[in-house]
């Protein structure tokens, strides 16, 4: 990654997309809402807990940051993540969504997703706001249907509440995705099996299954190093992942990405943007914008981000310019996360590199080890490879 000057716009400026070739202009936008009631022990996302006093400042700051677009943009996907976007009060949520709609023209069949905490949708007020402003996909942070596991994860809802929420979402926003976590300390294979069954019984459009990761800086991390929390044994995690991989497809959910399963036609189009290495707008603290090979991430501290925007300065906290090869390698790595794998022709067209040359001997080596298989036009992970995806990834990453 070399720093270049002159060719690229000033940090934080997004209006320059005017100058890009049409196919390089983002058709997706990510908005980060950094508010939560409290921080769960495993979570290391960009967020502030118990700082609702900052919400109004955040909304004004977003108004300013979005104005850098200069003109409304047409997008195919719009995604509100967090934090907890539904933590905003109904009136705030309404104003915010209206603001977003003024800057983003949703294409006719656009996907407009919002991440939600089940408890926030128990009442219908927020659901009505979301539906009225065009949100057509809800990603619910369910995590588990086992109350002991929910408690261990420090979630504020109970399993029963999820069923009620899904029930009343079904009329207004039927396209619901459930996020689940496995490999939680103390979680048994049976508990996980029951969670999967209850998820399937709700007939959601989409299910994500995430193996719990201990991230530096979280209380889970600290408690693990003190020996207070013991991570699930690797063999159990394997069994849990394997169970999801068997059970969900049997119930009609295609395993289209390492952690994601969906009914036909219900793959998350927004997230496909990342795995295809396509450009994306992004706004808010900790949000990662990727345009013309430049990645800019907003300050991860919400207060710093606010101060910057309010001072009329760029709120970008990290910026990297990737070389063509870096971009291609990255696209290859994230591309392999998809079950369809990577295709030679598409890869050459979108990233300008020959897949076989980029991977060199790694392809053969990984095929021999049974982790990769050749497809008609390219390569993909085998079932065994999905369990060891990082082992595969490391073979392709550059050594910068």
């Amino acid at each position, binding site marked *: 990654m070399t720093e270049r000057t002159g060719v690229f716009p000033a940090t934080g400026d997004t209006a320059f997309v005017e100058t890009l070739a049409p196919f390089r202009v983002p058709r997706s936008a990510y908005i980060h809402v950094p508010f939560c009631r409290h921080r769960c022990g495993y979570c290391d996302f960009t967020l502030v807990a118990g700082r609702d006093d900052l919400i109004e400042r955040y909304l004004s700051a977003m108004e300013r940051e979005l104005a850098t677009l200069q003109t409304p943009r047409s997008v195919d996907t719009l995604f509100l993540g967090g934090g907890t976007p539904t933590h905003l009060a109904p009136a705030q949520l309404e104003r915010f969504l209206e603001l977003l709609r003024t800057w983003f023209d949703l294409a006719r069949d656009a996907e407009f997703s919002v991440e939600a905490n089940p408890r926030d949708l128990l009442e219908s007020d927020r659901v009505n706001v979301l539906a009225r402003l065009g949100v057509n996909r809800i990603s619910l942070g369910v995590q588990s249907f086992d109350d002991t596991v929910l408690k261990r994860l420090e979630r504020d809802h109970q399993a029963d509440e999820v069923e009620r929420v899904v029930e009343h979402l079904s009329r207004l926003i039927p396209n619901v995705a459930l996020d689940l976590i496995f490999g939680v300390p103390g979680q048994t294979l049976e508990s996980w099996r029951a969670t999967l069954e209850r998820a399937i019984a709700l007939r959601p459009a989409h299910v994500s299954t*995430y193996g719990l990761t201990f991230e530096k800086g979280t209380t889970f991390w600290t408690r693990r190093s003190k020996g207070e929390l013991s991570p699930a044994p690797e*063999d159990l995690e*394997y069994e849990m992942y394997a169970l999801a991989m068997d059970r969900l497809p049997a119930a009609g959910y295609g395993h289209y990405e390492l952690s994601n399963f969906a009914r036909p036609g219900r793959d998350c189009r927004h997230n496909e*943007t990342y795995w295809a290495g396509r450009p994306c707008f992004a706004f808010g603290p900790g949000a990662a914008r990727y345009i013309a090979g430049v990645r800019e991430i907003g300050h991860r501290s919400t207060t710093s981000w606010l101060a910057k925007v309010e001072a009329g300065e760029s709120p970008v906290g990290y910026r990297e310019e990737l070389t063509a090869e870096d971009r291609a390698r990255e696209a290859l790595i994230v591309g392999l996360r998809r079950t369809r794998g990577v295709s030679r022709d598409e890869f050459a067209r979108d990233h300008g590199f020959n897949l076989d040359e980029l991977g060199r001997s790694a392809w053969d080596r990984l095929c021999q080890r049974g*982790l990769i298989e050749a497809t008609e036009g390219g390569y993909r992970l085998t079932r065994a490879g999905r369990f060891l*995806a990082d082992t595969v990834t490391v073979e392709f990453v550059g050594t*910068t």
Partner: protein
Amino acid sequence: MDPRFIRNFSIVAHIDHGKSTLADQLLLQTGTITQREFRDQILDDLDVERERGITVKARAVAINYEQDGQVYELNLVDTPGHVDFHYEVSRSLAACEGALLLVDAFQGVQAQTVANAYAAIESDLVIIPCINKIDLPVVRTAEVLDEMNSVLGIRPEEVLMVSGKSGIGITDVFRAIVERIPAPSGDSTAPLKAMIFDGKYDNYRGVVTYVRMREGRLRKGMKIALMRKGTSHEVLEVGQFRPNMAPCDELGPGQVGYFIAGIKELGGVHVGDTVTEANRPASDPFPGYKQPQQMVFCGMYPIEKTDFEKLRDELSKMSLNDASFTFVPETSDALGFGFRCGFLGMLHMEIIQQRLEKEANIDLIQTAPNVTYELLMMDGEIQKIDNPQDVPNTGGIKEFREPIVKVNFILPVDGIGPIMQLCADRRGIYKSTEYLGTTRAQLVYELPLAEVIYDMHDRLKSITRGYGTFDYEIIGFRPADLVKVDILVKGVRVDALASIMHRDNAERRGRGLCKRLKEEISKHQFEIPIQAAIGTRIIARETIAALRKNVTAKCYGGDITRKRKLWAKQREGKKRLKQFGEVEIPQKAFLSVLDVSDDM
């Protein structure tokens, strides 16, 4: 220069007793260097020395000192202080008539104090004993005087009280040098006779040879001969170190300096050799030195095969400046093409290895060090073994011999019990105990060198809370019941992990080794058995379970950068792995042979 006004001396001390600081103070007070030029330890010009605070290569500095209206030329010949460099110490001492013996006012007499003092006495030098660091907040001067008296027979009234750091007592030091050390003698009209005591290689000028003049004169333009091989050269420059190279017209009897004569390789200059005039040779050359013995060996292999030639060049460069280091090409099934390198001892090995990594920028795999062994074969032939994998697997060995050292420990008395226990565990033979005053003692053992080099230093330091020291000298080879222990990783014998050990320890150490390797080798897609074997008999086994799940759960827009850096780091780590069959073994694993402590 009239020899009556020349004094040649060195400073000897245990490590960290303040030798370099005192040397700097002497240079500073005589204006040989200015305060502005002053850096800590000016005599140590290798980076590694400065970093580790130890002197490796001898240097010589000429100091002009005025006393009672007379200018004296004091030549300070620096010596290394560590046990590995005995050899360099003795050759530096041969260039002197006297030595300052420094003893730390708190630490007192230590193992290398004794070793260095004896070396000076054996070289017939006048010793000026000094207690250094007398301005430390805590000193035990009276006891230290006692120790010096009981171990070295030094009378308290001879001892100077100094502080190299603050300059206390430095005038007394200068007076003692002038008054106690005899002036050199020598006939300036006799044929040239000078002794080579060191040399260094300069990229532009070839070999710079350090000499101590005995008789005659050495001038620019002279035709000289090196008596050992009879080669002759024309002198291009003569000079002294002040402290940088300063050319002068000539060197006369008693002086210390250097000459450059267009000699291209350090191998062409032998320390201890006699320099004389080509047309008028001296009648009797100096007896010369015996070559140093490399006792510790290890393999060095480039990680990238293509770096092999580069490594050879770097090793050659290194050996130009250090004749006591050897290297020969060798091949390992496991590691490919590399070099077997021989060192005087462990510190010597570490220094060379650090310099290689610093200066050469080659990624290396280094195998665990081993001592050199002798095999007496059935047919009477004696084989020298520098590498465990060279031990024949078939019979035919009549006797397996290992090097034995005499170890001299100096330690607080409450450490005697534990150290005796340690030495017993290490197959030591007790020789003697001598009390130095009431709190400290000198303990002498004979131990196999192999048991000393690995962790004796660390164990001694931990047992004595840092107050014990030791020194050793090689006394010969002795037969022992030794075996070669092989390591098999997933059924593949990894030659670079083989080690030689005593049969009685083989099972315990074999087990420890397998455990260590289990920690070092990361999980693979399959199960990996690790076995230790003597011949075909398996003596220990551990199993590394298969890697089952290794997946980054979330990889969305905001995660990619961070994950990519993480993966890149893992990728970087893989560069130091070596492939054996299907198994990747990290570099560190090859050193784990070392870390198998007794309690494993």
